[in-house]
């Protein structure tokens, strides 16, 4: 059976390893522990120092930000007005709650629906399978903003206009293609004997899927980490589908600090810094699943 979008699977034991015996004493192994740490530290700093600059500047006055952007806040420039503005104007906590509801619901829905679909596409090979898989993959290529007006009409027709479920449904639909595509790669690496053994033991299909989950949960965590990002940070759909004050997400709420000609920088930086925290927390939660991947006693 040829699938244009799948790859053939073979067993690791049969994998070619190349001729490793040629040089017993190869070039000096430069990957010492300190080198590895050194490189990782370098890139980690590169990733986080700019953000620390933003956090630092969120505690300064506007003049302090532009006058001396890289200096720590001193007596003159230290100012928490930004944070005060964020909490005083515009129900920041409510926005936070909305963002969390939308993002977490989308993650859960995407993971559940996407995992199920990917499992089936890998496991139950039928002629129409690749067509469905391709149909999903195409969704990764589409610019969702193009469909804005029909989406408004659909949501209005279903009475979902200016609600959080509208956002959840749109985001899930947007992220499902990627979730399905990614999860199929993780499912393909699951050994067949494991599944067959379960079936021989009389397990139903749902049970078999359940048995594979510990193996693919690393993939699930990766999918969750990746799909949550554009959902939390999206401005457009909250603006169009959930603009009411009680439904605003953090990203939308923050826009009030972005003016036509002048922006309230301290407040903007404060709000956006606070906005990143839940995502980092969610990522550490998902990362726990990666630890499972380090031990690999399954099936061997």
């Amino acid at each position, binding site marked *: 059976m040829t699938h244009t979008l799948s790859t053939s699977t073979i067993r690791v034991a049969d994998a070619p390893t190349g001729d490793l015996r040629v040089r017993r004493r190869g070039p000096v192994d430069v990957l010492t522990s300190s080198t590895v740490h050194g490189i990782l530290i370098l890139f980690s700093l590169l990733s986080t120092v700019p953000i620390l600059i933003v956090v630092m500047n969120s505690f300064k006055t506007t003049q302090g930000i532009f006058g001396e952007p890289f200096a720590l806040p001193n007596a003159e420039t230290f100012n928490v007005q930004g944070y005060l503005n964020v909490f005083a104007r515009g129900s920041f906590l409510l926005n936070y709650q909305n963002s969390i509801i939308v993002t977490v619901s989308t993650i*859960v829905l995407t993971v559940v629906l996407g995992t199920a679909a990917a499992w089936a596409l890998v496991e139950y090979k039928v002629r129409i399978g690749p067509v469905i898989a391709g149909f999903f993959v195409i969704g990764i290529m589409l610019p969702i903003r193009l469909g804005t007006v029909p989406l408004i*009409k659909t949501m209005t027709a279903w009475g979902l*206009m200016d*609600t959080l479920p509208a956002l959840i449904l749109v985001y899930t639909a947007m992220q499902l293609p990627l979730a399905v595509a990614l999860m199929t790669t993780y499912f393909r690496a699951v050994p067949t004997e494991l599944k067959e053994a379960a079936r021989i033991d009389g397990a139903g299909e749902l049970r078999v899927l359940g048995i594979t*989950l510990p193996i693919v949960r690393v993939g699930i965590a990766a999918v969750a980490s990746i799909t949550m990002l554009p959902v939390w940070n999206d401005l457009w759909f909250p603006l169009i589908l959930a603009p009411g004050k*009680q439904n605003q997400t953090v990203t939308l709420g923050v826009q*009030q600090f972005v003016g036509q*000609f002048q922006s309230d920088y301290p407040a903007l930086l404060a709000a956006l810094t606070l906005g990143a925290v839940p995502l980092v927390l969610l990522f550490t939660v998902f990362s726990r699943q990666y630890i499972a991947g380090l031990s690999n006693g399954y099936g061997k």
Partner: protein
Amino acid sequence: MRTTPPVIAASAAVALALGLTGCAASGGGGDADAVTITLATWRTEDTAMWEEEVIPAFEASHPGIHVEYAPVDTNDYNAAIQSQLEGGTGPDLIMCRPFDVNRQWISKGYFDDLSDLDAISSFDDTALSAWAGDDGAPYCVPVASVLAGFYYNKAIFDELGLEVPTTQQEFIDVLDAIKEDGTYAPLALGSADGWQLAYNMLYQVGPNYWKGEDGRLGLIDGSQKLTDPAFVEGFTVFDSFSDYLPNGFESISYEDMTQMFTLGKAAILPDGSWQISQVDSTGLDVGVFGAPPASAGDTRYQQEMADMAIGLNADSAQKDAATAFLEWLGTPEFQQLYVNKLPGFFSMGTEPVTYDDPLAQEFAGLKEGAELTSRLALDRLSAGQPPLDDEIWRVAQLMYNTGMSPEDATAELQAGLDSWYVPAQ
């Protein structure tokens, strides 16, 4: 720990339910008698002022109507409003962009004709024309206009013994003096944001050479071209300021310019009147002068741009309440309140208004003794592809960044315009 499918499914259901209840519980508040109308706008920075001053004043004189100020950041405003109106949702009151963009919205039927409103009689035809349809009927009630000028740091001028220039040559001399002194940058001006090169520089200094409305209307009716000497001279004068730009100006954005000026590092800031409160914010002693004419005694031209108006959504469910609000916009009560709460925005009504803020009063004074003119390219000349306004932004940047000559620039612009524009006869 295994997360079994049922658990996952259950948490999905819970999350979805949370979302549903979350919105159900918070929807539909407010007392039963009051009608709520929404006003959409791109002026996010005015939120506090509207919610604390203007709207309470309206609601006090119109009990039973509640107005919700719903700002959308300016970059997404057009896209969001268009999508909402096409989709059948949308605010009751819509703030209108001037000229061509608005004409397209009118032609798509977004607005109601406002000819019957009393408020319309408070404005003269020039004010209304920025928001009139092709049929000549008014579709938005004007709210405010803005002026362009050159802010200057009085302390720096005093320190260097400079006087406000009254001719272009004097202006160049002033800039030379500041540049020679070396302590301060002559102009807080960068080219990263093309729009302000056009709006705050070219459309300010240029009209002194292409004779303001004569030139602008000449382009529209086809009797003049951008390649005519008057226009080329305007572009040349614009270009002459490039000698006085700070280092790295190609990356200096509009916000950087303002910060540069308010931190006292530059002497002169070409900008619009909307920036008054920002410019005042650091306690500098600031004055403003208009773009001086070529020679003493020549007519001076002052850019005044019809900036904001409010229109009525044709599909609004609360037309009575919304119309009441629009009527209120024509009253001196609103105009006096609005322009004094927002210095830098000027009333467009026929009733005279006094401005409390001294800088705003000084700015308004620039209109005296000058011929007023709109920004060059927004009326009729940007309705097709390529839009002249966008092209001027691009070309202005090229002139400063790459040294493109005014002759080449105007030739390219005219070629673009000729490719689609049919002069209105």
